């Protein structure tokens, strides 16, 4: 299967940027049955800001290798949260990691899910609580 090349058009520079696919990608499902995919079928990349949150029914993160998904029911009036925590050791590219962070803020409370590099899932109410070494069977947050 040929490798797909996704592109993002940046208005500020009037130019296209190549975007590498993410292991976990999002799909925004709207109340009217339509949807917006982060990496769409036309090989276009979409930013979170393009999601019409007022029309959002649920937000799905899916793994492009396993096909498994995590569905987040989106409360009306909530604010969507989505970002990546990336890092590693200076000078060691093999140590680089990505944590996929998503959730929402609703009535001053946050519900945040973090997909960790080992595939485990953490539920927190503050992104500051996401520390890789914190999530083991013997550690209490």
């Amino acid at each position: 299967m040929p490798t797909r090349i996704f592109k993002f058009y940046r208005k500020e520079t009037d130019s296209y940027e190549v975007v590498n696919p993410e292991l976990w990608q999002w799909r925004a499902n709207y109340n009217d049955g339509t949807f917006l995919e982060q990496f769409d079928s036309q090989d276009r990349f979409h930013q979170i800001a393009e999601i019409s949150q007022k029309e959002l029914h649920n937000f799905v993160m899916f793994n492009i290798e396993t096909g498994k998904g995590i569905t987040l029911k989106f409360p009306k009036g909530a604010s969507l949260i989505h970002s990546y925590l990336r890092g590693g050791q200076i000078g060691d590219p093999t140590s680089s990691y990505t944590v996929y962070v998503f959730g929402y803020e609703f009535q001053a409370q946050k519900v945040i899910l973090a997909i960790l590099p080992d595939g485990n899932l953490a539920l927190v109410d503050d992104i500051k609580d996401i520390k890789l070494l914190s999530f083991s069977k013997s550690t209490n947050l």
Partner: protein
Amino acid sequence: MAATVEICESNGAGETISHNLTNSNMGNTDASSPDPVAYPISPGNRSYIKYQRVHVTNMGGSSQVKTLKIWRTTALAGSTTHVTNARTSSYAGALSYATPVKTAVTNVDQAMPTSQPGSANLGIGGDLAGIISAAGYSDYLGHQLITDAGDTAGNTSTMNYQYEETA
């Protein structure tokens, strides 16, 4: 990965920038990735200060890179200490580049964290809440080892970084 991010180091009077560091070795010379065996720090003295930056070379579809965190893992041997300008509060603003020296540098006096900080400790544009929204650099991370007269050679530890990216 969306944004392309590397760690750079500046050296020399004319500020020569070394991109995509392969290590963060420190020694008795102003150079990127020096051989510490060839340039050992004399016990009781400091290493040459490092001026490093997080560099976004391409936003890759992302809108922001922010919340930069730098820390060291594994303990240093002997009585060696590790100082930096990185801090999570009362940030002194962007550190200015100067030809690296092996004496103390103003504002490079905080203990390098040995676990992941709870919030940003390296600024962008002089502000811990700063953001990178187009190809560009963070503030300089200044850091330096201070050895004790009784220390011996052979310190090995790991420098870590993390940032938040919005796409």
